[in-house]
């Protein structure tokens, strides 16, 4: 180091030449490494972009398969999304191709071109798919409408009626899961319709028959076509091509990286740059890993890859989600772990035959999840072959159909079970009890019916809220169940009431024992959301044949006995005794007053408007009874109608209501409201008397109300009692020209065949469904299902209990046209109703 710090430009440097060379070399190396960085940078950006697009492509591919299935099964109602997926796939692939152009790797380019070709082909399949699905949808509408008209015609022959029913079923079914079992019969059915159209007398009927035949014919042609297209679009072909492309991109990329590393090494960059390169290599390696797994993790479609012996090599997250088997469970096993035992061995044999012969199989099958649950799935399997043609792998892609199925099953389950507790509902209970009574009659045994009511439940509901009340109900149901035998039948009767039928009632002691056990087990407090609640129950017991001969009687006597238990301070049980209770006294009081009430004019009719949902225009009214007693004050129909039914007084009362409603209806009709319809409730008891037809006829004659303005509302329970007799009555009523509506539809027995046989005109959607529309997607689905059902059977619907504009908007969207509820008006007196009509400006 020189002490002289002044620069001497003219002096030659005394430093050795190698240092200068080193500086020069460093500079050169530096510039070269900068160039390499730049070059690598370009390639890296490109690869990143390609990887991102490929990842998106995998996601889109899965989404496309999902949307295809949604469209096919009617869960999707427009084509915007499938178009968006399809065009997005293409634009992304085009970006990939653009990036690949900059680095011409032949194999990669070819794979991309092949994929593009595949996408183009798929796009034209999507076009055909949309066309076919559209025709199917509109033709189904037209066919249903035409068949409904045909079936309404009174003079069609039984074979023709049968054919129409079959056609209806064949294509209703097509709405759902593919099943072409009817397809072979359709040409025959269509021929039958055509034949009838040729020889029919009624011109309108002939038109309907011709239309139905045309649409059925069209549908029969299009259904298999549509199924084939669905299968085509859900094949994993594109996924496999996409994987091939991703694989090649990654191969090319690792080759490039190798080259790069070699260049850098041979250039002898310093340790630092080497470290950086190594660091970067490590990073790239990690990305590689991540990419490979991304490829596989398409979100909604389960994928499994097996080797040629069907041993599972890889599964994705969706596989685990659907089947419940984790990688640790599944790898190395064969897909037989999923077997449900629901398909015969031939089914699997056929699958393997197809796999071996054609290299692919797809279809619907039922598998079992790890937790033992069964689920339906749509599965496509592809055999992956090497150049020599030997199968090396199988790739299985499946989507879970259980959600689609669950929606169908929910409706079925609802008919027989209580939504909250999952216990059988009163419909199912009635079936079981009636069955038990029939058996007991034959074997001279006894049947016991226990009516269980939670004490002070209303208080809990009011103070702690319905949410806590609902939880408590479920826990109480569980508690009760826990002290029963599996063969005892427990049902939720409604509110906080349960009904229990022990398996055997031959020993009174055993029945008593059960009741005591129930009381005791309720004594332990319930822990609901951290609160300790004490609740007891009261029980009333009635026995067949001692106390009553049928279900109704037993229920009534058990109810009486229950009142006795309540009266005696609750938390106890009573058997029914002949002379009993204050409940009976109250009934007596009501009964005595009731018979005078009518003659004293204490009972009046109120009218609730039924309106056109879209315009709010009043279309009709439902007549409802009100009792304003001098002695008892205002008595709710919920209280006095059961008494009237039990005593038979409902018969004169109902007849009076019918006449009064018709009289009032005529007044409004004469005032110019000609399209006005008057709905009157007919009680089950009233219906059971054979003179209901004559009563209706008389009411119409006396009042002069046109029959088509009168609507009789029956409950579902009326229809299922003594079907043949009811059928005759309903037909006789319909022959008068009046219309039949089913009240509270959806809460009871919802049998398609009954509705069809009874030729019901109107379904009144129960208010419980309307009430929770905004919050409960199940209710929304159920309303849509009812709506579709009604449309398919040619019935109309009325939504009950509409209270908010949101409910109104939803119902309109769902295609519901008529409604009643507090949103429009509560039930009002005839005078007030007249004012409403005037304000409404109808007529």
């Amino acid at each position, binding site marked *: 180091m020189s002490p002289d710090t002044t620069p*001497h430009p003219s002096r030659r440097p005394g430093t050795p030449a190698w240092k200068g060379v080193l500086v020069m070399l460093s500079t050169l190396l*530096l510039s070269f490494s900068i160039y390499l960085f730049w070059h690598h940078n370009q390639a890296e950006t490109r690869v990143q972009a390609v990887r991102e697009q490929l990842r998106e492509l995998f996601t889109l591919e899965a989404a496309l398969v999902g949307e295809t299935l949604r469209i096919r099964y009617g869960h999707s*109602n*427009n084509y915007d*999304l499938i178009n*968006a*997926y399809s065009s997005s796939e293409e634009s992304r692939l085009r970006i990939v191709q653009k990036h690949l152009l900059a680095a011409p790797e032949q194999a990669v380019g070819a794979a991309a071109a092949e994929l593009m070709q595949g996408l183009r082909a798929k796009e034209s399949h999507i076009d055909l798919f949309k066309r076919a699905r559209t*025709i199917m949808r509109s033709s189904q509408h037209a066919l249903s409408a035409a068949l409904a008209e045909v079936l309404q015609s009174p003079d069609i022959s039984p074979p023709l009626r049968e054919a129409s029913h079959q056609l209806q079923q064949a294509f209703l079914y097509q709405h759902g899961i593919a099943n072409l079992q009817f397809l072979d019969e359709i040409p025959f059915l269509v021929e039958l319709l055509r034949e009838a159209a040729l020889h029919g007398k009624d011109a309108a009927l002939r038109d309907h028959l011709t239309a139905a035949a045309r649409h059925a014919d069209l549908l029969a042609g299009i259904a298999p076509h549509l199924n084939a297209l669905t299968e085509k679009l859900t094949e994993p072909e594109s996924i496999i091509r996409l994987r091939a492309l991703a694989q090649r991109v990654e191969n090319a990329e690792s080759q490039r990286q190798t080259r790069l590393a070699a260049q850098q090494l041979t250039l002898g960059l310093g340790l630092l740059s080497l470290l950086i390169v190594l660091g970067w290599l490590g990073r790239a390696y990690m990305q590689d890993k991540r990419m490979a797994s991304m490829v596989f993790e398409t979100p909604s479609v389960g994928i499994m890859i097996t080797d040629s012996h069907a041993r599972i090599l890889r599964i994705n997250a969706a596989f685990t989600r659907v089947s419940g088997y984790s990688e640790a469970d599944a790898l190395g096993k064969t897909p037989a772990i999923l077997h449900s035992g629901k398909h015969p061995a031939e089914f699997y044999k056929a699958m393997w035959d197809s796999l071996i012969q054609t290299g692919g199989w797809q279809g619907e099958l039922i598998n079992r999840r790890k937790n033992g649950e069964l689920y339906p799935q749509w599965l496509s399997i592809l055999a992956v072959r090497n150049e020599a043609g030997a199968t090396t792998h199988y790739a299985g892609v499946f989507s879970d159909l259980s959600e689609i199925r669950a929606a169908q099953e929910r409706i079925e389950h609802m008919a027989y079970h209580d939504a909250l507790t999952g216990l059988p509902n009163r419909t199912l209970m009635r079936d079981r009890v009636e069955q038990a009574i029939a058996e007991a009659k034959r074997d001279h045994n006894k049947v016991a019916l226990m009516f269980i009511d939670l004490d002070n439940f209303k208080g809990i509901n009011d103070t702690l809220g319905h949410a806590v009340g609902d939880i408590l109900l479920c826990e109480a149901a569980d508690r009760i169940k826990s002290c029963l035998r599996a063969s005892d039948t427990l049902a939720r009767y409604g509110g906080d009431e349960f009904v229990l039928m022990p398996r055997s009632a031959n020993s009174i002691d055993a029945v008593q024992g059960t009741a005591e056990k129930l009381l005791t087990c309720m004594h332990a407090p319930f822990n609901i959301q951290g609160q300790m609640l004490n609740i007891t129950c009261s029980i009333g017991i009635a026995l067949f044949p001692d106390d009553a001969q049928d279900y109704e009687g037993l229920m009534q006597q058990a109810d009486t006995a229950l009142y006795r238990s309540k009266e005696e301070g609750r938390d106890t049980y009573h058997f029914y005794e002949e002379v009993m209770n204050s409940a009976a006294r109250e009934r007596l009081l009501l009964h005595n007053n009731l018979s005078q009430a009518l003659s004293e004019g204490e009972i009046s009719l109120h009218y609730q408007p039924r309106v056109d949902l*879209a315009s709010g225009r009043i279309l009709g009214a439902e007549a409802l009874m009100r009792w304003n007693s001098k002695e008892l004050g205002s008595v709710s129909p919920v209280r006095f109608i059961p008494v009237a039914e039990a005593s038979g007084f409902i018969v004169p009362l109902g007849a009076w209501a019918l006449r009064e409603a018709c009289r009032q209806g005529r007044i409004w009709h004469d005032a110019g409201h000609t399209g006005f319809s008057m709905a009157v409730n007919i009680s089950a008891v009233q219906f059971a008397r054979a003179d209901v037809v004559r009563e209706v006829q008389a009411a119409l004659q006396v009042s002069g109300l046109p029959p088509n303005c009168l609507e009789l509302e029956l409950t579902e329970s009326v229809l299922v009692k003594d079907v043949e007799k009811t059928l005759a009555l309903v037909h006789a009523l319909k022959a008068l020209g009046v219309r039949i509506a089913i009240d509270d539809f959806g809460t009871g027995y919802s049998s398609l065949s009954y509705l069809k046989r009874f030729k019901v005109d109107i379904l009144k959607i129960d208010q419980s469904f309307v009430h929770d529309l905004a919050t409960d997607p199940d209710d929304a689905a159920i309303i849509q299902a009812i709506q579709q059902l009604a449309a398919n059977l040619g019935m109309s619907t009325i939504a009950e209990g509409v209270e908010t504009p949101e409910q109104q908007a939803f119902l309109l969207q769902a*295609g519901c046209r008529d409604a009643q509820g507090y949103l429009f008006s509560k039930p009002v007196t005839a005078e007030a109703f007249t004012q409403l009509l005037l304000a409404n400006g109808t007529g």
Partner: protein
Amino acid sequence: MRFQELRACCNNFRGKRCGKTGLCIALMLWLAAILLAWWWWNDSHAPDKAAGKTAESLAPAKTAESSLGILPLPQSLPVNTRLAALGQRLFHEARLSGNGQFSCATCHDLKTSGANNERTKPGINHAATSRNTPTVFNAAFNFRQFWDGRARTLEEQAGVPITDPREMGAKWDNVLDTLREDTEYSREFAALFANGVSKTAVTQALAEFERTLITPNAPFDRFLRGEMQAIPVEAKKGWVLFQQRGCIACHQGINIGGNLFQVMGVMGNFFIDRKRDDVTDLGRYNVTGLEADKYVFKVPSLRNVILTAPYFHDGSVDTLVDAVRLMGRFQLGVELSDEEVRQLVAFLSSLTGDIKADKPAHAIAMTRAQ
């Protein structure tokens, strides 16, 4: 630049007596350069704004939702306003035609319906085109363009009529030359495109402008958004019928159509009574050559349909009432009653959205440029 700096540095070192210090400084510089390179590398890996935008526009629209039959239009689509303003000028530019007399706006009248009310509008050679002019309004929501869907994008479509001898009948070279000679145009193109005036640039600008030609807030859209009184009772009945009769099977989605192809005459031969033997009646067949695509057309959007008479690909039907009736007969196989047709037309009338006043393109472009 770096090279020169470095060399200058090196010269400096040589001038110094202390070689070791020089070497140290060189090493430090070397390190600094590596750091610089690191920074550069990392920076270029930061999310690229342009790339981000592309990715966004590639994603399926957020409004896409397939459980509903019909969706309301958004208030606007994201556009580059300067590019759209250029497109607007071009849309009205008669110099894009062979004789300097036809612009896009000649057939697509933006003041009325985005189309015209002639069956088939004659082009430059007075030869009638063979198809009815489809409206340019909401074309951005169609999944393909033209009656037979032969263009996949607005950009692809925009170039076709310019050179079609039956329409604007121009040559691209002449059009591009004219635009290059115009100083205002060439300035705008240069500001927006690296290559200045080009065919791609012209079609991109036109397409961008067309993305602004959407008609939101139709009474029915407002109804779908919850304004129950936005449409009259008759239209509500029509809406119920529209669903029940199955019209909605084809005419669905955000554009109430425009998202699939369908045979004209599903339930009967539509063409048998038409005294017309035109190859364009074959529709999509002309594009794909597939037998199955004969007589297949793009299902048109029903938005603003009351304004776009006459109807169908050949403009053969003058009134909406007749069009609805024929659709019922040939597509659905039903004979609609007079009342049903009336209600359906009432519903269709509620699909007319806001048609924005078409400001003089020139004014917009000039204010943008300044």
